[in-house]
């Protein structure tokens, strides 16, 4: 069956190893730095806790000052150790579970974000790949499935965001003033001038719908995928510059489309060449000073 073999198309283990390192190193950054507000929920009055469906289903206790801090330390330590590639199943599993609870803490106070889906999928599937070393160019199906799942989750985030716009905003979403609203609420000196050009904002809304609907093209591979990924990075950076919103965990998942296994050797080569150049110049100086 073609779609099934596509889902399991073998990919180099080194690619999973590289993605794993980035993902687990990102967890402490996310928890301590870029979404540090999650930990602040520890001190928010319990009356503002609105447990998500999953929290009620599993009868999870309301986050408190102790539980939030303990989970934070465990999550950061587990992720830091997992980033080394040690015990990928056990530690990876622990990171996935702890991060999932961290997200329940994050999203149970009246606002749910949608930059987490692909990253949650990434954390959930990574442990299934088992041991994967950085230099291991062997391609296998377990790695292929991990990468494909993350890719599908990234595409789903865009495609279903377009569907959500049709569901909640109607088919005429693109002709509204949603971007004007975004800029009025969280503008910057870069975005504020756009408020005077409403037709341009409407054009940008059409553009957003268009690229979200075209996102399955990410799965085509080759040049199409690389250009699309580049465009998406540019889009998310521009959003950050304009309205201060960046989908960092989603951007980590977006890396699953790239030949990451080539990055580490390229960096190593560059460092080696630089070192070679440094030796050469040191020798040169020595030669000169000796003459």
């Amino acid at each position, binding site marked *: 069956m073609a779609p099934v073999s596509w889902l399991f198309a073998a990919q180099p283990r080194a690619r999973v190893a590289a993605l794993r390192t980035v993902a687990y190193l990102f967890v402490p950054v996310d928890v301590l730095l870029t979404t540090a507000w999650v930990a602040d929920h520890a001190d928010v009055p319990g009356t503002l806790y609105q447990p998500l469906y999953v929290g009620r289903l599993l009868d999870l206790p309301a986050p408190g000052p102790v539980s939030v801090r303990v989970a934070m330390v465990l999550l950061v330590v587990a992720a830091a150790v997992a980033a080394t590639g040690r015990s990928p199943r056990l530690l990876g599993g622990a990171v996935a579970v702890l991060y999932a609870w961290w997200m329940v803490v994050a999203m149970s106070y009246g606002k749910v974000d949608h930059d987490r889906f692909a990253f949650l999928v990434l954390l959930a599937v990574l442990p299934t790949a088992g041991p994967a070393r950085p230099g291991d160019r062997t391609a296998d*199906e377990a790695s292929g499935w991990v990468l494909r799942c993350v890719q599908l989750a990234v595409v789903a985030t865009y495609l279903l965001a377009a569907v959500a716009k049709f569901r909640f905003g109607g088919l005429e979403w693109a002709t*509204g*003033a949603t971007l004007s609203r975004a800029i009025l609420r969280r503008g910057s000196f870069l975005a504020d001038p756009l408020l005077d050009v409403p037709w341009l904002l409407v054009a940008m809304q059409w553009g957003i719908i268009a690229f979200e609907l075209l996102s399955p093209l990410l799965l085509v591979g080759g040049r199409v995928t690389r250009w699309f990924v580049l465009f998406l990075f540019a889009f998310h950076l521009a959003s950050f510059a304009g309205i201060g919103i960046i989908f960092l965990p989603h951007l980590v998942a977006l890396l699953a489309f790239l030949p990451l296994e080539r990055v580490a050797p390229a960096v190593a080569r560059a460092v080696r060449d630089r070192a070679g150049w440094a030796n050469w110049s040191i020798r040169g100086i020595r030669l000169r000073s000796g003459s």
Partner: protein
Amino acid sequence: MLSTVGRRVRLALTALVAVLAVSGTLYGQDDHFPFAPFRMFATRTAPDGPVRVVELRGRTAGAAAEGTLSMASFGLRRAELEGQLGRLRSPGMLGELVRAREALRDELPRVDVLRLVEVEYLLDDGRQVGRRETTVAEWRR
């Protein structure tokens, strides 16, 4: 090579997550996170309608006049406050927020008066033409 069982389990999980994600977007609500609809900026703002923004204004100890206070100092994000506006209408709830801020950022000056304000930007054809403010709730120490 994956074993047949390994393949089947993975295939079933993939299908399950796909079904949950799609049905979450079509029929679910925020409550169903992580299978909630991907609805950031999904609602349509009418080009002639108002844009509402909630702010916390307050007078802190030693300050001469009222100022806008950062939501983060209360441990919440603006959208979270807006998502729970109903509960925050009572002054008692604002008092609880002040206590949260004292627990969270004890280095900040004490808040003596706190107002929850709704700012409305009025649009005409996507262009801002006016602005008005309403106090939703007020708390005094």
